[in-house]
């Protein structure tokens, strides 16, 4: 459904250029949950922004159902790494979530229903008329997820959404994402630097190298469903997979001269 073809991105011109993505190719199937894992600064955000049509690639392309992505496609929802800066502090939770729906041609009742359902599915029903700054970081990220869900995207792109919340909240949010993905039947591309998170969540894991970035390996995760924070993580297969990903990233690092 989503195809990344020989994608490369170089920032800047002339002397001061950063080659963020060298050459990347992989595909995402309909309904799949794909995790992209790689070390900090390897270009994960760059990749996701190219996939969302927010950033033109230097060469190569991203296509969605065979159409090359040139601007943000209507079917794509995005959850930003900086949740607190992607929510509007002057709008209530309800209005933040409703904002993207205003230009969809929906009736008022339908819009209200979508917003309230999304808020309920992320467990924030009691906070619908609060403002983002009245909520904790984890709750703000829930609002951002609810906003994406209410938009009814076919594809949800998530950029290290849980990088700055505490461990317990993070585990809750991971399970929340797995659940809503089933409920809403959405295709997910989830970027993280956390190997455990990638293996726990993904149907497949795309492992990226250090910059200049390419795809090191694509790994199928055949862990039993539904995933469970305790049981899944104590499976020998889980330990095996995470060790595998860890070595893949590490091996690549050792091949490179220290900087």
């Amino acid at each position, binding site marked *: 459904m989503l195809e990344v073809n020989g994608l490369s991105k170089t920032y800047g011109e002339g002397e001061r250029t950063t080659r963020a993505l060298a050459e990347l190719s992989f595909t995402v199937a309909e309904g799949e949950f794909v995790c992209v894992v790689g070390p900090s600064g390897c270009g994960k955000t760059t990749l996701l922004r190219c996939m969302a049509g927010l950033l033109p690639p230097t060469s190569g392309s991203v296509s969605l159902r065979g159409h090359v992505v040139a601007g943000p496609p*209507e079917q794509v929802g*995005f959850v*930003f790494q900086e949740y607190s800066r992607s929510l*509007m502090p002057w709008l209530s939770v309800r209005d933040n979530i409703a904002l993207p729906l205003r*230009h969809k041609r929906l009736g008022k009742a339908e819009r209200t229903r979508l917003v309230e359902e999304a808020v309920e599915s992320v467990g924030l029903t009691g906070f619908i008329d609060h403002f983002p700054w009245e909520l904790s970081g984890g709750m703000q990220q829930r609002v951002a997820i609810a906003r994406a869900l209410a938009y009814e995207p076919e594809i949800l792109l998530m950029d290290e959404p849980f990088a700055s919340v505490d461990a317990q909240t993070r585990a809750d949010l991971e399970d929340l994402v797995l659940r809503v993905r089933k409920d809403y039947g959405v295709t997910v591309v989830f970027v993280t630097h956390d190997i455990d998170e990638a293996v726990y969540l993904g149907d497949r894991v795309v492992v990226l190298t250090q910059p200049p970035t390419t795809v090191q390996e694509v790994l199928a995760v055949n862990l039993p469903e539904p995933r469970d924070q305790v049981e899944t993580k104590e499976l020998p297969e889980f330990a095996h997979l995470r060790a595998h990903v860890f070595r893949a990233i590490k091996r690549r690092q050792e091949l490179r001269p220290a900087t």
Partner: protein
Amino acid sequence: MNPARRRRILLIALEAGVPLAVLAGWWVWSVGADSFYFPALPTILTTFADTWLFERVGSDVVPSLARLAAGFGIAVVAGVAIGTALGLSPVARRVAGPLVEFGRAVPPPALLPFGMLVLGVGDAMKVFVIAVVCLWPVLLNTVDGVRGVDPTMLDTARVYGIGGLERLRRIVWPSALPQVFAGMRTSLSLALILMVISEMVASTEGIGYFVLESQRSFAIAEMWSGIVLLGVLGYLLNAALALLERRVLRWHRAALASALR
């Protein structure tokens, strides 16, 4: 009583007490001084009551404030409109840059002769001068505010297809509003100054005209009562704007406070 609370009460007492003490000092001194230039404060206050409550409200205060409101209003609307256009477009900023720098550099009263030449000595000239003067702070602050919109918010708008007027109304303007208000505060002070000056230069009514006329006819207590009125009006106008800002930007203060938490 804990020390923090005691300190607060002391501060409030000082805040109210110092102006009262100054007034009392002025009162005592001016009654004793018997100076031509500084009439006794009780005399000034009696004159104030006789003159402004409410004899000259319709003939001087209302025309003055109406011109101020018109000039200020035009400046805010135009400043936000032009500032938004310049803030959104680097090309427009580049093209209009020198013009804006020149416009803001012209000392405001220098416009008066031009205004009188083109628009005569009526309301239009005064409103024009006030509007031109108030335009720049609003315009420049709006440009800054619009340019300062968080890039993540703009990306959010793009991903979710929020564009055009919707993007301006829901994202760009609210985000720029704290800066716009900062510009409006500066403009309001300038508006009051230019209101007075324009009435002193060419007018047959208005508070500024009254102050100058009183001075010319050696009605010193009347002159002082006009000065006091201008001070009171300036204070009230600033307070009204501050109140509006507090209400409109409640989210801004709360968000700042929670970011520091």
